[in-house]
C-alpha cells in the first residue's frame, strides 16, 4: 500500500511539474480560432463585438451609437471596468484565452505574452500620424490604434475667480498665491480625490513637465529611464520639491486621502471648491450636476512663467485580443474608427485631438481657451508612454501610492522618488 502511495504521489508531482513547464496554459483551449467569420464576409455577417474599457460608457456614448448605426448586424457590447481593477480583469480574460475582442490600452506584459494582435500590416494603421502610433509600437510592431488624445489640467470656477479678481496663473508661485487668496476669502481652493493614486501623481508630474522636460536634459530622459540608465530621483527631484510646496502650504491636506474622484468632482461642480484637476471626460458630468457652472481649464504651471503644461498624450487606444472570437468584426470596427466621422464622435463626448491624418483639430472648445497657448506650443505630454518596456501603469501607480504616504506625512519626497525607482528596477529585473 505504501508503495502505491508513493507512486501516486510522485505521479502527482510529475504531472504538476510537467503541466507547469508546459507553460502554454494561456493558449490551450483557444487553439481553434473561430474561422466562421471569413475576411470575405460582407457587412451582413452577424457578430458580437465586446469592447472593454476603463473610461466610463457615458464618455463613449456618441461613438458607440455611431458604431451601432454603422454595423447594424453587430451586437456591440461595452464593458466598463474601473481603472483600479482594469489590468487585473483584462489580464485574467486574456490568460484564459477568452475575453473581449477590443481592449482599451496595451501593456507590455500582454505584448510579451502574445495576447495582443499584431496590427502592423492593417490598412488603417497608416492613416495615423507617427506621434500617435509610436507609443503603441514595440519591437517595430504596432499593437493598437490611438483614440483621441487625452489631457488633464486644472478646471477652475470662473465665477469664483472673477469674484476674487483672479486669473489663471502663469507660474507656480502665482498659483500658490491664488490658493491663499481663495482661502482667505473662505473658499476651499482645490478639491482632490486623493484616494485614487492618479491625482497627485499627475499634478506633480505636471510640474516636472514644466521644469524638467522643457529643458534640453529632459529630451532623452524617458528613453534612458526605460533602459535603466537614468533615475527619477535625479531627474525629477527639484521639480517635485517645488510641487511639494502645495502640501506645505496646506493646499492639499491629508483628509483628501479619504476623498474619491466622484466626491471631488462633486465638490467642484457644486462650487464648494474653486479648482479641480481633471480632464475633458468630466465636462459633461460636471454640467449635469450643475448646469450653471462656468468653468475653464488652465494648464499646470511651472517654476518659471510660461504657458504651462498639460499632462496628456496619445489617448487610450484600441488593441485587439489575438484570441478574439470575432477578430474580423473587431478589425472592421477599428477600421471604421479610423475615419474622421468616428473620430468626431469620440471627441464629442470627451474632447481631445485626433491623431488621424486629415482631421481638423483647430477648433478648441471655449472651456479650454485658457490652455490654448499650451496646445499651440505642444505642451502636452506624459512621460510614461515613452518608457519603452517599462510603459504601463505599474510604476506610476507606485508613484501615486508613495505620494499618498507623503501627503500623510509618512514619507519624504526624496523617499517617494527613491521607492519609485526601486519599483522600476524590480520590474526591469523581472523581465530579464
Amino acid at each position, binding site marked *: 500500500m505504501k508503495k502505491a502511495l508513493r507512486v501516486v504521489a510522485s505521479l502527482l508531482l510529475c504531472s504538476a511539474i510537467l503541466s*507547469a513547464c508546459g507553460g502554454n496554459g494561456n493558449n490551450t483551449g483557444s487553439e481553434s480560432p473561430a474561422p466562421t467569420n471569413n475576411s470575405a464576409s460582407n457587412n451582413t455577417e452577424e457578430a458580437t463585438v465586446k469592447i472593454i474599457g476603463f473610461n466610463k460608457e457615458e464618455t463613449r456614448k456618441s461613438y458607440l451609437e455611431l458604431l451601432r448605426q454603422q454595423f447594424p448586424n453587430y451586437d456591440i457590447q461595452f464593458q466598463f471596468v474601473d481603472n483600479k481593477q482594469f489590468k487585473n480583469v483584462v489580464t485574467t480574460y486574456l490568460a484564459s484565452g477568452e475575453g473581449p475582442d477590443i481592449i482599451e490600452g496595451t501593456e507590455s506584459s500582454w505584448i510579451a505574452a502574445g495576447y495582443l494582435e499584431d496590427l502592423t500590416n492593417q490598412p488603417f494603421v497608416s492613416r495615423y500620424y507617427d506621434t500617435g502610433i509610436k507609443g503603441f509600437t514595440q519591437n517595430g510592431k504596432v499593437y493598437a490604434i490611438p483614440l483621441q488624445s487625452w489631457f488633464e489640467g486644472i478646471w477652475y470656477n470662473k465665477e469664483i475667480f472673477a469674484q476674487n479678481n483672479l486669473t489663471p496663473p502663469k507660474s507656480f508661485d502665482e498659483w500658490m498665491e491664488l490658493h491663499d487668496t481663495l482661502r482667505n476669502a473662505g473658499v476651499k481652493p482645490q478639491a482632490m480625490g486623493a484616494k485614487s493614486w492618479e491625482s497627485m501623481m499627475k499634478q506633480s508630474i505636471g510640474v516636472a513637465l514644466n521644469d524638467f522636460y522643457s529643458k534640453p536634459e529632459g529630451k532623452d530622459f524617458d528613453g534612458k529611464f526605460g533602459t535603466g540608465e537614468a533615475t527619477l530621483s535625479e531627474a525629477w527631484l527639484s521639480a517635485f520639491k517645488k510641487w511639494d510646496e502645495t502640501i506645505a502650504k496646506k493646499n492639499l491636506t491629508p*483628509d483628501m486621502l*479619504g476623498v474619491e474622484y466622484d466626491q471631488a468632482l462633486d465638490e467642484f461642480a457644486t462650487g464648494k471648491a474653486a479648482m479641480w484637476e481633471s480632464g475633458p471626460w468630466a465636462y459633461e458630468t460636471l454640467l449635469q450636476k450643475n448646469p450653471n457652472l462656468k468653468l475653464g481649464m488652465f494648464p499646470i504651471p511651472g517654476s518659471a512663467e510660461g504657458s504651462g503644461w498639460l499632462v496628456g498624450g496619445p489617448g487610450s487606444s484600441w488593441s485587439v485580443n489575438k484570441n478574439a472570437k470575432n477578430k474580423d468584426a473587431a478589425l472592421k470596427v477599428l477600421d471604421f474608427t479610423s475615419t474622421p466621422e468616428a473620430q468626431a464622435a469620440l471627441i464629442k463626448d470627451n474632447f481631445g485631438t485626433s491623431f488621424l491624418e486629415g482631421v481638423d483639430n483647430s477648433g478648441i472648445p471655449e472651456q479650454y481657451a485658457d490652455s490654448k497657448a499650451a496646445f499651440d506650443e505642444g505642451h502636452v505630454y506624459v512621460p510614461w508612454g515613452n518608457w519603452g518596456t517599462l510603459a504601463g501603469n505599474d510604476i506610476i501607480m507606485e508613484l501615486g*501610492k508613495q505620494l499618498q504616504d507623503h501627503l500623510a506625512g509618512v514619507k519624504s519626497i526624496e523617499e517617494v522618488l527613491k521607492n519609485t525607482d526601486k519599483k522600476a528596477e524590480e520590474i526591469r529585473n523581472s523581465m530579464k
Partner: protein
Amino acid sequence: MKTTGWNLKRNVTFQLFVLPALIGYLIFYIYPLVQTFIYSFTNYSLYHLDMEWIGIDNYTRLFKDDSVIIGIKNTVIYALLITLLQNGLAIPLAIALNRPLKSRNGLRLVFFAPAVLSPLVVGFLWSYLMSSTDYGLINQALRAIGLNDVNWLGNPKLALYSILLTQVWQWTGYAMVIYLANLQGISKDYYEAASIDGAKAWTVFRQITLPLLLPSISFNTVMGMIGGLKVFDVIFAMTGGGPGHSTETIVMTLINKGITESQFGYGSSFAVVFSLLIMIVAFIQLKVLKKWEERLF
C-alpha cells in the same frame, strides 16, 4: 489475511466513499498547492512563459521587498487585534447574556446579525459612515458634539484600525454566541458552590468559567487568527489597500503580484511564505491551548 467476498466488497465500498472527496480535493486543492511550491522556485511570468528554475532567488527577493513586508506586518497586526478584541469583548458579553435576562433572545439576535452580512457590503456601508464628506455620519456626529473630523480611511496610520473596528462590529456577536452556548452547558452547581464559599466574582471567573470555556476559546481564537490572516473582502471594499500601502494585506499583495503583475513565480514564493506563516501561527496557538488545558485539568 483471508477475506471473504463479502468483506472485500465492504472494504472496497468503504474506500470508494472517500474517492469523490479525495479526487476533487487533490485536483482543486493539493495540486494547486504543490504547483505553488514549484512555481516559487521559477521565474514564471508573462515575460517568461517558458519558466526557468531560479532556485531561491524569489525568496531572497521577498525579504528585500517593502510591499511584502508591509503586507505581512499589516495582516499579522490585524489578525492579532481582531482575535483579541473580538474575544475580549465576546466573553464578557456572553457572561452578561447568560444572566436570566428577559430580552436575552432578542439581544442575541441583534448581536449576531452583522455576521450574516457580506463583508463586502459591510465594507461599503462603513465607507459611507466613515467618509470625510458632509454625509459621513460618524464625522457629522463628532462635529455635532464639537469635535474635529477624523480621517478614518484617509490617514495611513489610522485606516487599518478603522477597518478593524468594522470587523469587530461584525464578528463579535458570532464569537459571543458560541461562548454563550458553552456557558449554558456549564452546570449551575459550580456557581452555587462557589457562592456558598463566598468566592468573589473575579475568582469565580478565573477558576471556574474561564477553564470551562476552553473549548470555545480554542475554536474562536484559532478561527479568528486564520480568518484574520486571510482577510480580503472588507479591505478590498473600504480602501483597496490604500492609502499608499497602509492597508494592504497578504492576500491582496498576493493577488497584486501574482495576478495583476502576472509574476506567477514570485507571487508563489510569497504564497509559500504565507502558508508557512499560517501553519506556524496555528501550531503555536494549539500548543498554547494544549498547555493551558493541561495546567487546568
